[in-house]
């Protein structure tokens, strides 16, 4: 029962929100309650998976492999908890920052439909069902991306829609070929039958098709160009939600598909994945360094962080996967926090342009601390969460003898620190330039609360790194089995 709740709660919240279409206060209350419920359901699911092992549910009571199965191992449960956390913080933050026009056109219900798609993708054990959840998530994200109809949003939206639809077509083709080869759709069943397939080259070709399809969705090198073109256009809470969850669903699907179904082909593909991981890290961070608009800079940096997650898959050892899982938790929270900071900065000084910002260190000491915690955590400074995540990945890399990727990891961390100091210098440290202006000196509490929670969580994740790494290791061992 706990297994279906993370899908059911956002669904019911979304539907209830649509039923009270014209009453925004009710929608807003529903949205927060629903998101809190999702987080609660996620935590309950994590607890039950931890105590009782992998949970499965046969939808409609059709026995596997004929019906659609839902299944949650620790990795899925952790991802659902993260979706709940980001969902709740974004839902609260939206109360203070989404304009009435967007609310009138169903912003809050859409948010929950998106969360439903994300959680469905984390929980399904059926490959075609995964495609359906991807589409649910995509359709909601298309509307959230373009809701408001500003010129930049529509332009970014077209690029986003076109490339994601193409990825979906490739994914669908991959599912079709895989069904033709194995006659199964349940992922565990496919894995069993793939071993007996007589054309191993065909299986590798299918694996690469999935790598490209999910690679576009996860924004891997060289398929990431839609992300910096579109992610900075919607309002800040939407960007925070997208950066926290959407690309991570792509990475989740990659890890799931490659550890569960193509485990035998992983040997051939691993060097390729590692190379892509390194290039993704480097191009993402270099792109970020060249930007002067805060949200664009942060968007480019999402790409660089995706490289770390992929590195865990590329190394393929339990420690590396555990590092990737821990890193996912860290990056989802820290990145969402930084986007929320950019929203508050915009409210304080009316722009995202680093050249026109300044003096926030003097006027907003609390905001400064709340920026520094996730920023330094992303750069990997101890004792924050990023340090332990990177430590696990680096150690796994050294154990596997992949020194090149370890060197790239450390270099990219240094560049991350460099670009965080760039935001620090421009927005916080230097005095307010002449063309800049302070538009507000205070913010509603609903903006501070979620940001405070996320920043506190990056510290907690660092302080409780031991138990959390144990959790990640157990999740990784479940994946490798």
């Amino acid at each position, binding site marked *: 029962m706990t297994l279906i709740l993370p899908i059911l709660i956002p669904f019911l919240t979304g539907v209830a929100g649509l039923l009270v279409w014209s009453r925004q206060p009710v929608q807003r209350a529903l949205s927060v309650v629903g998101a809190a419920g999702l987080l609660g359901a996620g935590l309950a699911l994590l607890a039950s998976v931890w105590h009782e092992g992998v949970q499965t549910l046969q939808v409609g009571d059709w026995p596997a492999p004929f019906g659609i199965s839902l299944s949650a191992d620790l990795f899925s449960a952790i991802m659902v908890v993260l979706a709940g956390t980001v969902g709740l913080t974004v839902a609260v933050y939206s109360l203070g920052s989404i304009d009435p026009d967007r609310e009138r056109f169903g912003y809050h219900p859409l948010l929950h439909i998106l969360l439903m798609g994300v959680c469905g993708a984390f929980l399904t054990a059926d490959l075609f069902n995964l495609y359906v959840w991807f*589409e649910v998530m995509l*359709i909601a994200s298309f509307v959230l991306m373009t809701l408001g109809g500003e010129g930049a949003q529509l332009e970014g*939206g077209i690029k986003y*829609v*076109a490339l994601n639809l193409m990825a979906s077509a490739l994914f*669908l083709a991959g599912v*079709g070929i895989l*069904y*033709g080869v194995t006659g199964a759709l349940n992922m565990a069943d496919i894995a069993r039958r793939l071993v007996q397939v007589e054309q191993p080259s065909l299986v590798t070709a299918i694996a690469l098709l999935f790598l490209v399809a999910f690679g576009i969705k996860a924004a891997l090198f060289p398929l990431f160009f839609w992300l910096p073109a579109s992610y900075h256009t919607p309002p800040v809470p939407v960007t925070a939600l997208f950066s926290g969850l959407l690309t991570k669903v792509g990475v989740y699907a990659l890890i799931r598909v490659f550890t569960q179904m193509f485990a035998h082909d992983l040997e051939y593909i691993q060097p390729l994945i590692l190379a892509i991981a390194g290039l993704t890290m480097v191009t993402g961070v270099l792109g970020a360094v060249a930007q002067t608009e805060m949200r664009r800079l942060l968007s480019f940096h999402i790409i660089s962080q995706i490289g770390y997650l992929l590195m865990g898959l590329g190394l393929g050892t339990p420690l590396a996967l555990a590092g990737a899982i821990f890193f996912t938790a860290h990056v989802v929270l820290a990145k969402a926090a930084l986007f929320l900071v950019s929203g508050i900065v915009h409210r304080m000084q009316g722009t995202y342009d680093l050249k026109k910002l300044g003096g926030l260190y003097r006027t907003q000491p609390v905001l400064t601390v709340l920026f520094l915690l996730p920023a330094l955590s992303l750069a990997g400074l101890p004792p924050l969460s990023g340090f332990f995540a990177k430590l696990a990945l680096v150690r796994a890399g050294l154990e596997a003898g992949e020194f090149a990727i370890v060197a790239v990891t450390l270099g990219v961390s240094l560049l991350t620190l460099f670009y965080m100091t760039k935001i620090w210098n421009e927005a916080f440290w230097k005095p307010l330039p002449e063309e800049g202006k302070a538009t507000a000196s205070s913010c509603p509490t609903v903006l501070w609360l979620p940001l405070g929670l996320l920043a506190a969580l990056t510290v907690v994740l660092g302080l409780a790194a031991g138990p959390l790494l144990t959790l990640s290791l157990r999740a990784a061992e479940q994946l490798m089995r």
Partner: protein
Amino acid sequence: METVLAFVIGGLYAAGLYMLMRRSLVKLAIGLALLGQAANLLIFTLGRLLRGRPPLIPPDATALAGPYADPVPQALILTAIVIGFGVHAFTIILIKRAYQTVNSDDLDDFRTET
């Protein structure tokens, strides 16, 4: 039949990709639709084509005997068509709105910095 369909699928993929690489917005939408249809036909073909063998269990038997047409790919395609319909409808409206805002059908004009 498989041979014919293989050529049709190949043609659809080629046409779809060609349309995607044009600069016009409308052609982009057509290209995406063609790619979706190509994927659907691919699933249909890979589900093995059999004529006149419905997957029905005769009244005097308890299980299907011999080769029969697999209903699963058709269910998959049906789902994919429905999803594709919704998504393409959204794409077309998006393109219309973008055309009204930017006042151009040329993707090269879509590069204003914000």
